[in-house]
């Protein structure tokens, strides 16, 4: 069956089977590789995308469900260059291997959209479903807070 979706602002008409999962459709049919194949059961967050602005696990969404909806991956977060959040994560050297980065950037972007002045606890909650096996999370949380320009000082 055919579905029409917008991926990072660009419209796509895709032919999908009911059993196709959004993660594989994005990677194979659309060619967007930033959502990563991790646990494939919703536990790790590496396949996170924004669906109509809200973070979802693309491994837990059937492609047919998204007909008519808008999907955003890290590539589509801004029209030109990097967002302040992305630049801060780079400046503070927050990631190591980077496998979790697309998911964490999107989860943090959703948080900052809804809560421009988050507390450290807000950031921890927002990225608690995104596993990182390199960093221990602290440099990531510091960067999200720095990007948000909150009054709260990093307290680690």
């Amino acid at each position: 069956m055919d579905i029409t979706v917008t991926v990072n602002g660009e419209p796509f008409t895709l032919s999908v089977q009911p059993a196709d999962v959004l993660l594989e459709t994005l990677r194979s049919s659309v060619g967007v590789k930033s959502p990563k194949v991790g646990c494939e059961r919703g536990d790790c967050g590496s396949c996170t995308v924004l669906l109509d602005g809200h973070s979802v696990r693309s491994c837990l969404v059937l492609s047919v469900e998204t007909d008519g909806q808008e999907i955003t991956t890290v590539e589509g977060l801004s029209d030109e260059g990097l967002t302040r959040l992305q630049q801060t994560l780079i400046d503070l050297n927050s990631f190591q291997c980077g496998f979790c980065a697309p998911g964490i950037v999107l989860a943090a972007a959703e948080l900052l959209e809804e809560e421009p002045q988050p507390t450290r606890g807000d950031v921890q909650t927002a990225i608690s479903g995104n596993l990182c096996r390199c960093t221990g999370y602290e440099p990531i949380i510091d960067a999200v807070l720095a990007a948000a320009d909150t009054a709260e000082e990093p307290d680690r």
Partner: protein
Amino acid sequence: MTIAHEFDYLRPATLEEAVEILAKHSGNVRVLAGGTDLVPWLRDEMIAPDLVVDIKRIEGLDRIDHEGDVVSIGSLVTFTDLLRSDLIATRLPLITEMAGTVGSTGIRNRATLVGNICSAVPSCDAGPVLLAYEAIVEIVGESGFRQIPIDTWFRGPRQTALDRGEIVTKVIVPIPEGRHGAAYPRLSRYRGEDLAQASVAIVITPENHYRVAFGAVAPTPLRAQRIEALLDGRTLDEQLLAGATVLVSEEVSPITDIRSTREYRLRMCEVMLNRGLKAALARLEGNGPPYGTRLM
């Protein structure tokens, strides 16, 4: 990475259409709402439907409504919706506290309260909380609507009272009369995303009526009737708490699995009952920790 099993997919626009599809279909059919259980179950081949009916675009099922002395929660209401609802936070704060413990934001944005009780895994968080609020499940099928009290809803692990051809439309939650204090201590291995190892939902009213329900420590979520009978009408003190604690092992029947041992679950149920009763009482008296504060 693919789902190997093939199935058909339909997305009805109305409840009537959905009921008609279910009535006509003779094979194995599954209703899809948030999909956070259904999709991994399909991938693991735990279920093999030949038809999946996506109810997500049916209008009106995403509503949280206050009607008289009840709040109804439609079958498309997500845990994120519940967390953001002022109505839920003021009238049914135990649901707010519970919603914050489910999965992570990316799961809560998709997973629904009704889906949680339809999946009916023993560790489902909505189960004990809806038991403690004495909720009613509204169902529609070819012969019309019917209502099932939540205490007869859970029939076993992943088994419910839902019959073939039926869809849950909403959960109706009576608002306890007057003020109430409540608490949902929930044990998990780490902060962030994990299923409950054990949980207990508690509601206390000013007249010292107590409702206590456990999750993840029996084949289904369950009301602790012996504990409730002991506590009923009495003011909570250390002696009463000790008496209630003794009854925990008669109420629950935890198992050892990958997430915990039977012994640890049992002991922690006693601890959680104590902490939960104290927190619920403090909240009733207006000086407890805010709802959503981690109690474990």
